[in-house]
């Protein structure tokens, strides 16, 4: 299948794939964070991402606020709405998890609608917090400062979250609630504060993801929804529990798309995502079989 691929083309495809995967990884972190506390797949993440990015766009592009202020504003709004979702989760403790998941999806749709109301009726692309120009050439492709900045941010956040969960007292409490919420409560761990707090962090991560993803994919709710679907696929590899494996899974999805879409292997129209779908299928199978083992991997 590989037809006369030069090393430069392959290198370029790999680089493109890694940066595409970074987009998914950013979105995956929020999904893992909220799942890590009360086992609910948070489908509110794309809504929080879009709304956080919308606030960032309004503040930076319309009000003229400095990029850093707009960034903080977007992330803060994401955290606020994440906390509200967490509070709703507390009220729904007795509900089946599937119903709560659907509730989070409705929250996304609500935030999509609200963002639509705010945004102009054309596709917009917010300014990058890392600047819209600058970068360097690698092989046949050009890597922008935005891509590098997003990649580094993603790695730092992954390491930070992994550290907090595995090495700190907060992490121990979070793991205790995740393993058995009722027992954790009897030990005096304030369940409510932790659920709301972790969902607020998930909201902040989603907003940060939206702000970093939208300069590249444009600030369109449906596009970001699809990014989230690929992110979900990547995070499943770690059973939705591990930040590190979610990062690796997302990069794998991006790599497969980069290599198959970069003209190295021609599979025909519509089949370009086949590699990504294969990664998802393997991830679901692997996570299903090894879930117990993965649950104890705290990266």
């Amino acid at each position: 299948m590989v037809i006369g691929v030069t090393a430069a083309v392959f290198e370029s495809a790999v680089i493109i794939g890694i940066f595409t995967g970074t987009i998914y990884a950013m979105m995956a972190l929020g999904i893992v964070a909220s799942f890590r506390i009360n086992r609910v797949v948070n489908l509110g993440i794309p809504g929080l991402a879009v709304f956080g990015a919308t606030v960032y766009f309004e503040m930076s592009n319309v009000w003229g606020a400095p990029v850093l202020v707009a960034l903080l504003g977007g992330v803060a709004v994401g955290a606020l709405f994440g906390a509200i979702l967490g509070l709703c989760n507390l009220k729904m403790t007795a509900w089946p998890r599937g119903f709560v998941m659907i509730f989070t999806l409705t929250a996304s749709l609500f935030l999509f609608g609200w963002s639509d109301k705010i945004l102009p009726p054309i596709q917009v692309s917010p300014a990058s917090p890392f600047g819209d120009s600058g970068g360097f050439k690698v092989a046949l492709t050009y890597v922008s400062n935005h891509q590098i900045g997003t990649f580094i941010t993603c790695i730092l956040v992954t390491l930070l979250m992994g550290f907090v969960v595995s090495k700190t007292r907060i992490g121990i409490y979070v793991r205790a609630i995740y393993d058995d919420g009722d027992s954790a409560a009897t030990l005096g761990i304030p369940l409510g504060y932790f659920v709301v707090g972790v969902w607020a962090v998930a909201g902040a991560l989603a907003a940060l993801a939206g702000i970093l993803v939208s300069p590249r994919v444009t600030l369109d709710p449906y596009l970001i929804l699809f990014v989230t679907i690929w992110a979900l696929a990547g995070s499943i590899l770690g059973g939705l529990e591990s930040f590190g494996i979610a990062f690796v899974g997302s990069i794998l999805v991006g790599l497969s798309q980069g290599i198959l879409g970069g003209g190295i292997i021609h599979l025909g129209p519509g089949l370009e995502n086949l590699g990504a779908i294969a990664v998802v299928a393997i991830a679901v199978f692997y996570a299903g079989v090894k879930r117990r083992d993965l649950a104890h991997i705290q990266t």
Partner: protein
Amino acid sequence: MALRRRWSYVALFSTLAMLGAACSGGSSKEASKKADNTQAASPAPNASSSTPSADPSAATPTTAAAAPGSPAATPSSPSTPAAGSSTPANKSAASNTPAGKQAASNTPAPGAKPGTAAAPTPHAPGPAGAVPSATPGKANYASDVGVSADTIRIGTINMTSATRSLGPALAGVQEQNLDAAVKYINRSGGVSGRKLQLVTCDDGGDIARGRACYEKLKDNVFALVPSLTWLTDVIHDRLPKDKVPWLSWGWFKSEYEDPWMFPCHANGMREASQVADWTAKVLKPATVGIMYLNVSEDIAAKDVATKQLKAAGIKVVETVAQEWDSPDESQHVLAMRTANPDFILSFSWPAPVAKFMHDASTQHWQPKLGFAANHLTGDPGYGPIFGEYIKDKTYTITSWGVPTDPSDTDNAEGGNTAEQQLLRDELIRTNGREYQGFKWRYAGYHHITQSGWVCTRILAKAAEQMGADLTRDGQKKVLESKAWDSGIGSTLYWNAADHNANQNYSYNREFIYKWISAKDGGWDLKRILPDPVFDCKSGNIPAAAKTICNS
């Protein structure tokens, strides 16, 4: 035990019998066929309401489609002819501009005869039956569905509330364009003494809601005018039965196969055919890359273009299928870069194309001869979305002329026509100064919204020809009887025997524009000659026009 087993046998045989009956299906199919035949043989369901004053509600403008208790479809009537405006009192206002004068008096402008019949064409034979004509002196009456002695109701179904799918940006503007056309026609005297009334219905981009809209409108309006709705691809089972003429937006190729649809702009396949032919004859690249959206219409466009390019000896070295939700196009830029075509043709959607352009820009790469993209890339409002990269290297094809800077003298006969000026004046008159901004550029220059204006004008002209005896059948025959010059560059005709496709192309020509830098540093379009023309013998091509004939 034995009893239970016996009942089990009974249950088993009953089930098998029911399955057998269900699977044979003969009787039910036969029944539906008979029902269809009966329906076809009997008068059309709306025939009874077409008799004069048969149903007072049918002639009441406000009843139209606004059935209560149906939130799915919410028709409204923005263009109810007000008593004050029912007289042609504003004729003087209309004639403030040369275009207004011309349109009001039907005097042809140099090189343009808006809305009037063009010269007959060798490929547009007349209809099978006699073409209806007006009976002088006969009083108007409710001659058919949606027609009364003083009103003709026309309908439109748009995805106005589909917020992220062309809704506010395009469908809402489409309705405003139609509204402007209706108001202009009414102010200029109406249609043989009748005023037009526009009835709108919002389907939100949902086909089921679109069907509900259609059901409400079909018995209340005389005809449908260009609408932004996916419904036009799936309603073909109903139009011939209901005999509703629909001057449609022309997005789907199936519209050209429906005898009751009159597509008002060139669809993707036609654009692809024209732009491939133009590329081969004008730019003459040795190799071409094609990117297309992975949907049936654009796959068909890619196939048509590939065939045409191959016939011209041009090699298609790479094809890239884009997804509308693609988060990144870098990999496709890499694929094109590796294949290194002289020129790239795009039959895709603005979002992935914009991403491709941005990624190609960051990779500092471009094909030697640039790009040619479908009309979506040429919408004037979209310039900033594609960025500086598109300037001086991107051609677009569109169905109608687009007004450009006055210094673009090549565009006088296509874009800066009297009818274009009239369109702009009427849009501003109807909608106010908001049209000076983004929406105006979209409304005025987008070829689907332009089609709304053009085909409402054509509908009125055709209806006028029938006078008091206005009927849907007659309307169809009149529309098919001759070619209709839009006044903004192209001539339309719908062959009575077959509205379809390549040998009977309903458009005689299209236009090529190129993105350039505007005087203020923004984005502007420049007309590029020669024009692509489907068949030089088949339309009302001005003798002076520079054209490339696609035979």
